[in-house]
């Protein structure tokens, strides 16, 4: 599943560690989501959605894979 996490993070000038801290997950988790190797759980997807103030479907695209 593709996502815009890296772009959204870069727009805010956050490092992966910054984002990980805000989402309360490990930096490895943020990295794995960004490169599309790991799909976040529903609770984490909602946290990401709330953090960026965007609907989940505008961040994650379920129609496309790697």
């Amino acid at each position: 599943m593709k996502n815009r996490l890296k772009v959204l993070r870069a727009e805010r000038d956050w490092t992966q560690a910054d984002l990980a801290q805000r989402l309360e997950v490990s930096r490895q988790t943020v990295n794995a989501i960004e490169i599309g190797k790991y799909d976040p759980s529903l609770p984490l997807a909602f946290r990401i959605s709330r953090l960026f103030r965007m609907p989940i479907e505008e961040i994650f695209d379920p129609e496309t894979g790697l």
Partner: protein
Amino acid sequence: MNRIEDSSRASSGLGRDRRNRRLVTIWSMAWGLAFTVVAFGIKRLEWSSEATLAGVIGTSILGLGTVVAYRRFLLETDELRRKIEVEALALAFGVGVFGGLSCWLLAVSGALATKDLAFVFVAMIFTHVLGILLGYRRYS
């Protein structure tokens, strides 16, 4: 889902995670030490049946503590780490059950020289560690 969500958020992959991991290490080391002492006592010192029973009960209690600590670590750790750990556990379980039973069949048939299948448990531990290493590599 709530418990996992809450615990994941609380852990932050930092303080609580480190504490839980340390607890797992302490419990498993205590179990390993007790197991070694009891095995040595039974095999070399020819412990009495009472001492053996007390040793086995004590070791089992420490083993139970290790399981509880590991379960807590799994529930409260970061979600990607949990996935890696669970995948490694599945791999180790497969090696232990199916590999172990295959070895047992070979031992029963006489194709395997030894009937001591303790090496299966060692193989499970190595498989678990290998699974974790491969998991971190896969998701990085």
